[in-house]
């Protein structure tokens, strides 16, 4: 077991966004988190990564309690994430963005020689495979919405991490790139990196995930293998429609 979420509750004003949710992720697995819009998926990510404090319950990682830790403490444990709305450094170039998480991030290094250090070969290989290599030296601000999403996703592959939480990695991405993105995820996973993925693209979820958790109105509606989830009547009704 890797992540363990026990009876977690989160309220926003009068609205219960996450309602007594419990689950575990298996070490080294790819776990999917699906559910209708507004079901609490992103909020759950915010709670696990320490972006928001929980109201009730506990969150554990490898036998260590992590709720209550600050953001950077969670990151230091090797738990990182991407966002639905991208957060990249607009004034750094595309390549510089890629190298930020991989190198000595002291202020001096950042201002003195932002391109040195890190793993430029890996960065270039990733940029190549998502068609961003030609924009390597352009400021990230000049990228389109979809390209910024791709950059952020690529960036998450640059980090040494134990668990990567991806928030809708395929939204806004052209379907022709999906195969290469799936390939990276599988590659990194085979080397031991764990993934926890929010996604609305069922092809992606069903082909990548070992285990799927379904949220609905802040509660866990179901969990299980992809083949089981696809047949679950409640899931079909609440989420997949028809």
């Amino acid at each position: 077991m890797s992540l363990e979420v026990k009876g977690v509750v989160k309220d926003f004003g009068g609205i219960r966004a996450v309602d007594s949710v419990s689950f575990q992720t298996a070490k080294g697995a790819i776990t999917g988190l699906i559910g209708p819009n507004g079901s609490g998926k992103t909020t759950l990510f915010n709670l696990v990564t320490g972006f928001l404090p929980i109201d009730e319950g506990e969150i554990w990682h490898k036998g260590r309690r992590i709720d209550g830790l600050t953001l950077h403490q969670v990151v230091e444990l090797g738990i990182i994430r991407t966002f639905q709305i991208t957060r990249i450094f607009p004034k750094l170039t595309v390549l510089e963005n890629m190298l930020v998480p991989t190198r000595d991030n002291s202020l001096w290094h950042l201002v003195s020689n932002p391109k040195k250090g890190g793993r430029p070969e890996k960065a270039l290989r990733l940029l190549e495979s998502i068609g961003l290599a030609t924009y390597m030296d352009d400021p990230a601000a000049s990228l389109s919405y979809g390209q910024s999403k791709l950059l952020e996703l690529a960036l998450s592959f640059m980090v040494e991490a134990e668990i990567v939480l991806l928030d809708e990695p395929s939204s806004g991405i052209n379907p022709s790139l999906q195969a290469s993105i799936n390939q990276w995820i599988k590659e990194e996973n085979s080397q031991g990196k764990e993934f926890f993925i929010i996604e609305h693209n069922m092809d992606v979820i069903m082909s990548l995930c070992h285990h799927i958790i379904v949220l609905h109105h802040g509660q866990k509606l179901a969990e299980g293998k992809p083949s089981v989830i696809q047949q679950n009547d409640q899931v079909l009704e609440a989420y997949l429609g028809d």
Partner: protein
Amino acid sequence: MAINMLSLKEVEACYQKGIKILQSISLGVSPEDIMCLIGPNGAGKSTVLKAIMGLVNVENGSITLNGEDITNSKANRIMRKGISYVPQGRTVFPEMTVWENLRMGGFILKDKNEVEQRIEQIYEMFPILKDYRNRKAYTLSGGEQQMVEMGRVLILDPKYMLIDEPSLGLAPKFRRMIFEKIKALNQQKNIGILMVEQNAVQGLEAADFGYVLDMGKIRFRGSGVELLEDKRVRQLYLGGGDARKTN
């Protein structure tokens, strides 16, 4: 040139001088049409919509509405002429209620009674927005927020609606619902639709006609069905394989 039409003729546009994002784009939308633009990330799809709205500089070519030149006009003037624009990503005012968000769409209308009447019409189109009218927009789900965004531009009673990735971030059930609403706007209100979609298969299925953009140029054009069945389009832009299987 057809009179009742939004037309782009050989449009070239750039954000920075010298770097052309659009190269000689020609296309037309009439009020009967649903048009869908698809293509890789960075192809220039969103830029086409921004060029029409006067939000990016058109260096060459022309954009006309019912024969009248609107190239590089100001966005507010273009909206007054009947073209509305729903940008990419969630753009509701999160701390405002649904009703306040809808009213913001009528900001440029002087007659506030008219705004209220239009809001009532929008409630008929999207009944859920009436139920939620006093809720702050950020408490709504993604699909409901997308309806607020569409409702907000309908206040101006547009003849054309430009929508950038209406299905972005939506669950399968809501995605279908949004495409159905778009079709209803087209069929019942006679609003011409020009949408950008990365969810290319569903976008093309909802559309009468599609264009594939790549590197700022139109590479393919055809009916939604033709493009979906075109082997090259499928291989290059729809992720290969049997495109229709997706969700």
